Structures are given as structure tokens and as C-alpha cells.
């Protein structure tokens, strides 16, 4: 108790310097936390992926389709529970800046597969009944002010024309990792229209989503699916949903690495600032430390006082930085929802904030603590007066 009182009072002895140092740490922890959350948001799709879901696509590239006839053959493979399928639609709502993910999928099997998307039963029934029905995530509906029954028109890019839908369902996520900014509609609506307009593009899907009975069967099922279609006109590449999502991330790996580096640079800079503060503090208090030593306090006590003071500063800044990270992340998420639908401050980010602050506190105290602990008492006392 006495030690804590001493550390706290010492830490706030030079109020302006302490305020500026704590402010610096607060800003650094806030920046570090936001950058780590940004990286998490980048990996949100990976985090949301399930070990019980596989994705099958054309082995050449994702832009090449697969025949719808593969569906029944995949379903027959041992270990496969559900087969869903769909196409990336890539429609534009009013203006290109209104970017959001929209898919044509087999809604019934898709919702069975994505149990994290919760749709009220009456809406589910309405969606199934209406060929032109679409389902939007809660965040997406809020963003454009959509209500059940609203008519929504998307301008097709991959599939030309104006596509009219009726919003019959608004889903919400079972947990924070579920993406509530997607829109999906009946694949049959797309396929029937394509049959009329561009028949050669009909009966083709962009991907199959496959639910398996156990994650342990993942590799067997993967090999089995790709084995069936080997040497066919459209060979398949099957991978876990996580690997599929990571494939997208790897295209932007350089950006993620750059952001990670910046987050560590922020911590190194603040480490230098706190180390400078602690060096100045220890130099000013060298006489005081000599008095403590004279009274019988050992080198360990002196080092403890310096490390303690350094940690009081960094942990105060850390607490403030963490407290500010949450409202800052909410504001950032609101502003960037078009691009980053999931922007949640994770527990691991908070742990990293705390670990970074502890590291800064300890490293900043090493040199002054070593110097003060090894100082000759007579030399320290001679600095007083």
C-alpha cells in the first residue's frame, strides 16, 4: 500500500510532464488498438468461417463457373450433409459507391448451412414463397433504410440488366463475427432470367458451399470431390472455408504486413518517449534514491521504484487508451461500414494493448533502474543541495 502510494505520488510529481507522457501513451495505445482491430477486420471472414464448411470452385479460377449438375454428385459423397451453391452477383445499388456483397444462392440450403444468420420464421417462409425475394443483413438494411416489403433494384455488372427484388427477410448475426452486411436472393431467379437472356450462361454456379458431418472428414471429402471431377471439362478445387477466405486475404498480404509494421513502430516510438521521461525522472531523483539507499533500502527496492513508476505511467495511459478504443472503433466502423462490415475490438487486441504497455513500461525503466541501483550513495548524496 505504502509502495503504491509512493509510486503514484512520484509519478504525478511533475504534472505537466506526466500528463504529456500519459497522453502520448494513450494515443499510442489507441492507435495500436485501432490498427490491430483493422487487421482483425481484414481477417473477419477467416474468423467467421466454419471448420464444417467446404468451398468448391473451378480449379482454373474463381471466375470460371461449374455446372449445376455437380450438385447431386457432390451430395452423394460420404460425409457431405448439405450442398448449397451460388454466384457472386456483384450488383450495384443506385450508385457504385454503395458497395456491398450480394449473391444469388439457393436460399433454403444456404440458411441451413449458415446457421449464424438468424432469420425470423415468418420472414423465412415469405422468402421461400417469393421468387423475387431477397434477404439483407441488419446492418445493410439499416444503412439504406430498407424495410420488409421494400422494392430494391440492383444494376447487374456480371449479369447485365436491372434486377428487381423485394425485401422479404432481414437477418441478424448470432454473434459479433457474423457479417450483417450481405444481401442474397434466389439463385433460381438469376438462372431462369439467364435462360431467357443468355442461355449459354444458365445452369452454372460460381461456387458450391458444402456442409460436412464432421470437421474431421474435411480432408477426405475434399479429396473425394476433386477426385470425382478430375479430368472433366470443369475440374474442381475444394478447400475449407477458412482456406478459401485466406486465399482472398493473401492477395492483400502486403497491406496487412504494412499495417502490422506501423502498429509496432507506434509502440517503439512511445517506448523511446517513456524511456526519455524515465531517464529524466531518475536523473532528477538520484539524490532521493541515495537517501533511500542510505536508510537501508537495497538496489532491488530502488529498481522496483523506477520500474513501478514507469508502469504507473504506461498502465494509466494504457487504461485510457483502451477506454477510448471502443468509442473510436464504433465511430470508425460506422464511417467505414461499406468496406469493413465487421470492426469489433477483440479481447486479443486488449491483451496485446496491455502486453505492449507492460513491455514499454519495463523496457523504459531498465536503464534508469540499472543506473540508480548501481549508483554510489555518497555520489548520489553529493547531488543534493
Amino acid at each position, binding site marked *: 500500500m505504502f509502495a503504491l502510494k509512493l509510486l503514484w505520488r512520484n509519478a504525478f510529481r511533475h504534472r505537466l510532464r506526466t500528463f504529456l507522457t500519459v497522453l502520448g501513451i494513450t494515443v499510442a495505445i489507441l492507435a495500436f488498438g485501432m490498427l490491430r482491430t483493422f487487421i482483425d477486420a481484414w481477417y473477419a471472414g477467416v474468423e467467421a468461417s466454419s471448420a464444417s464448411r467446404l468451398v468448391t470452385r473451378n480449379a482454373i479460377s474463381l471466375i470460371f463457373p461449374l455446372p449445376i449438375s455437380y450438385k447431386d454428385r457432390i451430395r452423394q459423397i460420404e460425409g457431405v450433409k448439405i450442398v448449397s451453391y451460388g454466384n457472386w452477383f456483384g450488383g450495384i445499388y443506385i450508385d457504385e459507391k454503395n458497395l456491398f456483397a450480394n449473391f444469388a444462392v439457393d436460399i433454403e440450403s444456404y440458411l441451413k448451412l449458415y446457421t449464424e444468420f438468424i432469420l425470423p420464421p415468418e420472414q423465412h417462409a415469405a422468402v421461400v414463397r417469393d421468387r423475387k425475394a431477397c434477404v439483407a443483413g441488419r446492418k445493410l438494411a439499416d444503412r439504406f433504410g430498407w424495410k420488409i416489403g421494400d422494392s430494391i433494384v440492383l444494376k447487374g455488372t456480371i449479369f447485365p440488366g436491372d434486377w428487381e427484388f423485394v425485401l422479404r427477410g432481414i437477418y441478424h448475426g448470432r454473434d459479433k463475427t457474423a457479417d450483417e452486411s450481405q444481401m442474397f436472393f434466389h439463385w433460381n431467379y438469376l438462372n431462369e432470367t439467364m435462360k431467357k437472356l443468355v442461355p449459354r450462361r444458365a445452369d452454372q454456379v460460381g461456387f458450391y458451399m458444402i456442409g460436412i458431418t464432421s470437421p474431421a472428414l474435411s480432408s477426405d471429402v475434399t479429396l473425394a470431390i476433386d477426385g470425382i471431377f478430375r479430368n472433366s471439362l470443369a475440374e474442381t478445387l475444394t478447400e475449407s472455408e477458412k482456406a478459401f477466405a485466406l486465399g482472398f486475404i493473401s492477395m492483400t498480404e502486403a497491406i496487412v504486413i504494412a499495417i502490422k509494421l506501423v502498429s509496432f513502430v507506434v509502440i517503439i516510438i512511445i517506448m523511446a518517449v517513456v524511456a526519455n521521461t524515465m531517464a529524466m525522472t531518475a536523473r532528477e531523483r538520484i539524490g532521493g534514491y541515495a537517501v533511500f539507499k*542510505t536508510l537501508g533500502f537495497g538496489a532491488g527496492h530502488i529498481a522496483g521504484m523506477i520500474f513501478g513508476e514507469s508502469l504507473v505511467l504506461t498502465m494509466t495511459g494504457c487504461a485510457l487508451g483502451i477506454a477510448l478504443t471502443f468509442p473510436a472503433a464504433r465511430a470508425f466502423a460506422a464511417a467505414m461500414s461499406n468496406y469493413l462490415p465487421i470492426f469489433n475490438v477483440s479481447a486479443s487486441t486488449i491483451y496485446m494493448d496491455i502486453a505492449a504497455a507492460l513491455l514499454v513500461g519495463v523496457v523504459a525503466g531498465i536503464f534508469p533502474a540499472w543506473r540508480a541501483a548501481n549508483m554510489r550513495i*555518497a555520489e548520489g548524496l553529493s547531488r543534493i543541495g
Partner: protein
Amino acid sequence: MGNPDKPIVRIRNLSKSYRRGSQVIPVLEDISFDIPDGEFLALMGPSGSGKSTLLNLLAGIDKADCGTIEIGGIDITTLDETALAGWRALNVGFIFQFYNLIPVLTAFENVELPLLLTRLSKKERRDHVETALRVVGLADRMAHYPSQLSGGQQQRVAIARAVVTDPAILVADEPTGDLDRHSAGEILDLVDRLNHESGKTIIMVTHDPRAADKAHTIRYLEKGELKDVCA
């Protein structure tokens, strides 16, 4: 009261020098003398004569080049840093010219500091601190910070801190050097009282003849050598 026939301090062939670059500057040369238990000794001499260095060596806050310092039967020159720190905490009380109180601690907390190294309970510590502050006449200033006290009062808090562990020896380095005449007189009376009433052995470095007058014995140092003894 201590036993005046028995020396509490035995110094033999004590030498100390400092290095300044390649130059070796001798400060104390082959000093030997005893200090009886309960003695009030004043060390005097011109600046740079080695008084404070001798005091530091006696108090165990500096290391001699050679020679022995036996205090209460223990040769403190053989103790390592940790053992010496423990020995200081139990056996020596320090009074400095500039009081050297910790500015962020109250008078009570400053006096309590040396007791934190003991096994005393919080209540026992409180009792000791209150007694020490009462002895120096500052029972009503316990919650005051050093900046809220006059120089004389700060020095009295420093004296309370020095005696709170009940050490056998008090070392004082120019205890009145930063005080006005009136406050200096009060401090000297207090130190004198501690010697007479509590039997503390006092070793005091001073330039002030008035302070030296309070001592039983005055030893003069000049260029690192003991010159005269006045009883």
C-alpha cells in the same frame, strides 16, 4: 545510556582515496581512533579535509580502500552491499545538511520509511512514528508535507526519521548548515538531548563552532589526517 568505557567504534589504519581520471587523490590517510559508546563527537576541519568522507565510511555508505571500521563488534568493511544496507537500517540514523526528506511523503510517512524494512506491524509502526515525532516536538505536524514545514521543522522530521528505529549511532553531516541561528540552536539542543537522555552516540561533521561546543570531543582533520583532539 551507553557504556563510556567501551568503544562502540574502532577505526584502524583507515585510508580512502578517489580517482579523477588517471589521478589518485588521497582523502584519508592511515586514520586510527576509537569512539566510546555514548560519545558526542564533532569532526571539524577545513573544506576538503575528509570529514564527510570519514563520516560516510563510519556510516557504511562508502567503502574504504584499506583499514578496518569495527562498530558494535562488527567490521563493516567486510560486509557486502546487501549486508551493509541491512546493517545501516538497524544501527545508524542519518541527519543531513539539507534534511533529505522525500517531498511526496508527509512528515509521518517520511519517519515511517526506515520502519518499512522491519517486521513491525502497521500499528507498531504508527506507535513508533508518533513517539519519534513527539520527541522532536512535531506531533501536530504529522500530516504536513516537507514543503509545508520550515527548515528547522524539516530537520526535526529528519531527526525523528533518524531515531525511529532506535539506532545506537547517529551521524550528522552539517545538521545546522542550512538553518538560521535560532533553528540551529533548537536542533543542536535536540541532538544534545538525544545524546544525554537516550545515550545515542553522535558523530557530527560541522564547521559551526557553536555546534562543536555541544560535543564532548572535537577531532580536527586536515588533509586527510587527524590533527588534534579537544575534550
